[in-house]
Structures are given as structure tokens and as C-alpha cells.
């Protein structure tokens, strides 16, 4: 038994192909990103070693910090929207008729590509012919906003399709977690005269705290990596008002051919993602709920 199940040849045969693939395409590249950041390089010609120059420039680059701030803002919005998703899931999971059907409907946007969502919302946001402003005019708004063309509100506007896209995803997960809460606990609380809101707040939410934490991390880290939709909808504009770290990196590297500096931005993105993940994990663990 032992020898068959610990045959080194078989283990290598089963594990190595996949392991080599992720080392080659995920782990080595993240190290190389840091290394390329030390170079002056246009992506085609030879690399020239310039030491920490790119990284020093990065720390002073207001555009980078602005894009990082935008990414963090999106993460903050996403975390706040989790409250709404959680309330909806609590309602759906409390024996609502048709809950299963509704959560399937809510999930539909999540199945579409961010590019399709971006192109669709470009039309929805269209200031004159778009659905949104036509609707606003219909209900009597005189000067509806320009949405994506207005640098003051573009980031908030972008958050609408993001909520639309991910609502179903978080609801499905919260709903599944809530369905795992033991029925006896809720019945017992009902006998003690607890109201549905008390049951939700004092029993259900603490019991799924673990899942909520994972979702907070997912929402924030997901926001830090956010790219496709913004790239398609605004390209980071107008005037960098919706630039995020990934779009800044992409433009520097693949449009301006600053591959060295782009790599430094990519490495900055990685470090910020790891630090934020670590920080949130610490933050959430200190308030761990016992059950």
C-alpha cells in the first residue's frame, strides 16, 4: 500500500507538468518583472541596466500614486457594496419563494466578458442616445451628467457596471454560506423571541464571518487588479481620471514601449497587492469571532 501510493516516479509524472507550467508562466515572470524594472528597455532592443532609477522615479510618480489611489478607491467601493450584497443574500436565504430563480437572474451579467460589458455600458452611458440619460431626461432631470467624459464622476460611473457585473457572484457565495447555517440555531432563537433582523445580525452574520472575510479580500485584491472594463470603457481617461495601476502599466509598456518602467509599475502592483492582502488578513484576524 505504502510503496504504491508513494512512488516517486508516479508523483513526479503527475505533478511536474503542471508545476513547471505555473513556475514558468507565473512565478518566474513575477521575479523577472522586478528584474526588468532595473532596466532601460523598449521591449525590442537591448536592455540597459540602470539600477534603481525606475523604482526611484516610481516613488515620485504622481500618476502612479494616483492610479494606485483609484484602485484602492474601487476596492473601498467594492467592500462597501458587499454590505448590500449581504443584505440581499440574507433576504433571499430566508425562505423567499423563487430565491433560486432570482439568484440565477442576478448572476447573468457575471457570465459576460468584461469587454462585452464595457462596450454595452459605453452605449448605456452615451450622453445623448444612451439608455441612462434618456431615462433621466424622461423622469425630468434637465442636465444629465456626461458620465465617462466628466473627470469628476468617471470613477463613480465606472463603479456602476462593476456592481452590475459582480452582484450575482457575491450573492451566490453569501447565499451558499447562509444555507449552511444550522437550522436548529435559528429555530432556537425564534423560540426565544428574536426578530428576523436580530437573527440575521446576531446569529447568521457572525456564523459566516469566515466567508465574509474571504470575500472582503477578494473584493479588494480583485479591485487592485481591475483592468479589462476600464481599458475598454475609458482607457484610463479623461486625463488619467480613471487610470488604475494595471491600465497605467499596460499603456506605459504596450503603447509607449517603456518596458523597463512598465515592469517597475507591474512590480509595484504586485507588492501593493501582497501588502494589502497581508494587511487585511491581519486586520480581520484581530477581530476574529468565536463560535
Amino acid at each position, binding site marked *: *500500500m*505504502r510503496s*504504491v*501510493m*508513494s*512512488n516517486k516516479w*508516479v508523483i513526479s*509524472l*503527475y*505533478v511536474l507538468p*503542471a508545476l513547471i*507550467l*505555473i513556475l514558468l*508562466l*507565473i512565478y518566474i*515572470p*513575477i521575479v523577472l*518583472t522586478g528584474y*526588468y524594472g532595473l532596466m532601460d528597455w523598449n*521591449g525590442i532592443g537591448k536592455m540597459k541596466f540602470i539600477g534603481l532609477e525606475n523604482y526611484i522615479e516610481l516613488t515620485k510618480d504622481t500618476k502612479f500614486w494616483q492610479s494606485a489611489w483609484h484602485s484602492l478607491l474601487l476596492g473601498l467601493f467594492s467592500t462597501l457594496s458587499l454590505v448590500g450584497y449581504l443584505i*440581499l443574500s440574507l433576504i*433571499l436565504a430566508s425562505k*423567499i419563494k423563487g430565491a433560486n430563480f432570482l439568484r*440565477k*437572474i*442576478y*448572476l*447573468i*451579467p*457575471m*457570465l459576460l*466578458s*468584461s*469587454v*462585452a460589458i464595457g*462596450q*454595452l455600458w459605453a452605449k*448605456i452611458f452615451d450622453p445623448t*442616445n444612451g*439608455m441612462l440619460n434618456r431615462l433621466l431626461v424622461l423622469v425630468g432631470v434637465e442636465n444629465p451628467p456626461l458620465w465617462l467624459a466628466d473627470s469628476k464622476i468617471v470613477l463613480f460611473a465606472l463603479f456602476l457596471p462593476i456592481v*452590475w457585473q459582480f*452582484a450575482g457572484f457575491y450573492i*451566490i*457565495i453569501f447565499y451558499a454560506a447562509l444555507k449552511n447555517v444550522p437550522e436548529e440555531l435559528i429555530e432556537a432563537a425564534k*423560540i426565544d423571541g428574536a426578530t428576523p433582523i436580530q437573527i440575521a445580525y446576531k446569529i447568521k452574520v457572525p456564523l459566516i464571518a469566515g*466567508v465574509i472575510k*474571504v470575500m472582503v479580500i*477578494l473584493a479588494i485584491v480583485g479591485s487592485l*487588479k481591475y483592468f*479589462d472594463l476600464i481599458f475598454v470603457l475609458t482607457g484610463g481617461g479623461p486625463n488619467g481620471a480613471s487610470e488604475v495601476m*494595471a491600465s497605467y*502599466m499596460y499603456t506605459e509598456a*504596450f503603447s509607449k514601449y517603456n*518596458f523597463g518602467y*512598465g*515592469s517597475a509599475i*507591474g512590480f509595484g*502592483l*504586485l507588492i501593493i*497587492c501582497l501588502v494589502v492582502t497581508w494587511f487585511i488578513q491581519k486586520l480581520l484576524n484581530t477581530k476574529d469571532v468565536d463560535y
Partner: protein
Amino acid sequence: MSKVAVEIQKTTLSASYKTSKSLGNKIGYGILYFALAVIAIIQVYPLVWLFLFSLKTNQEVFGMSPFALPHAPQWGNYAKAWTAGHIDVYFFNSVLYTVAAVVLTVILASFVTFAITRMEWKLSGLVLGLFMAGYMIPLHSTLIPLFNFFKTANMIDNPMSVILSYVAFNLPITIMILSGFYRTIPREIEEAAVVDGCSIHRIFFQITLPMTVPVLSTTVIINMIYNWNEFVFVNTFLSSDKWKTITVGVNNFVGQYLTDWGAIGATLMISIIPVLIAYFILSDRIVEGIAAGSVKG
């Protein structure tokens, strides 16, 4: 507590429930259902609107109410998108890359999960950790080195670069879902097979793998949706029109036909329809897959 006692308690509970369902309660439920329905409409209506304008002429789009039905459905918009926008080629490429990457991912992930959860070796925990942590790595931090790597390996503008990237970046979530299921399968059958002198490969292919079919279908669906919708790798690694996928193709098409809303709508619809059809058939599995993939993470 005995079973009977629980039953009695349940009946008394539901009885007290019924009496407490007053008029106010009913109104409350009415408002609740109304709110839930409004959210459902918000989630679906943009797609209905897209379908409507995909069948309109530009005069209708710019001149008339965006909520009106098209006068005479312009199915020609679809024909135009399909041929003029190379959508036929893109569509075929999307199918090809998606299928190739899904098959490779699921096979490789099954091998790894079997070796990690079933076999005994010292580094299994570390290797599992490496695969899981891959889920947290931002893809964009790898993009420039990957681009350079594929360029050096002469694989730029070669679909293999995209397929291999899909496999690498989907392995973590696939292994995550699979390992949750593998840990619930009892080991007795495999142990009996070992005692009977069955080879490890036969155990994997003929005993364990068939038992994982339900969860395999879940991972297949999740992978399919990810790959079908992927944008950055294709946009970065592939430049010829003959290799592009529908997601990138749609983006390019819209860039060229900025003002032709009908054709744009038709192109978007074509790219969305396969996913929607898959969802209508397999929605239970998809919902389950999403719940399973993340709750256990």
C-alpha cells in the same frame, strides 16, 4: 431531544407563524418582493436593450426612444457583423482555444490533485500552497516577462502562448475546486484496488477519475467561461486577425464601426449568446461551481 419532540416543536412553530402573518407582514413581503424584482430587472434589462438596438437602424437608435421596439427587425446587422467583422473566424478561434485550454487544465489539475490528496510525499503541502497562491498573483505583473518569454520562444502571434497562459492561470482555481471534492471521496475503494495489485495509473484513470465526474463538469464550465471571456492575453500575444478571439475581435470591431450601433449590438449579441445558452442549460452547475470554488478558498 427525541425526534418526536422536534416534530412537535416544528408544528407549534409553524402554527404560531401562521397566526402572526398579519396584514402588515403581507405588505412587508410585498415591498420585499417588489425590491427583489426591481433588482432582477436592473440585472437583465441592459441585455434586453442591447438585443433591441442590435435590430434597429441608426435612425431608430438616434431619433427615437431607446425603449421602443424596432420597427422592422434588422437581421442584416447580424449578417454584417458575422462577415464584415471577421466574427466567423474569431468565433472559431474562441471555441478552439477554449476547448484546448479546458481539456489541458482539467487533466493536469486532476493529476496534481490526485497526487496531492491521495499519494504520500513530503513536499505535497508546499506544492499545494504554490498552486493555491497562484490565485492571488495579479496577472498584469507577469505580462511583460511573459510577452518577452513568448517572443524569445518564437511564440508571439501563436495560439499556443494564449492556450498555455490560460492553463497556467486557471490551474489554481481548478485545483482548489477539485481538492475540495477529492477530500470527500472515501479511500476504501482505492485501498482495496491497491491490495488487489492494481497499478496506480489504473486506479487513477479507472477508479478515482470517474468518481469525480460531477465536480469535473463544474470545473469545465467555470474554465470555459473564463477562457471564452479572456481579453488581455489575446490582446497582447496575438496580433494577426486570423488568430484573434471573439472577445478581442468585438473590441476591435466596435473601434472601427463607432457609430453603427446596430452592427455593434449584433456583434456583442453574437459574443454573448453562446455563454447565455450554456447558462440556460447548465445554470445549476454553474451556480454550484461558483459557490464551491470560492467558499472553500
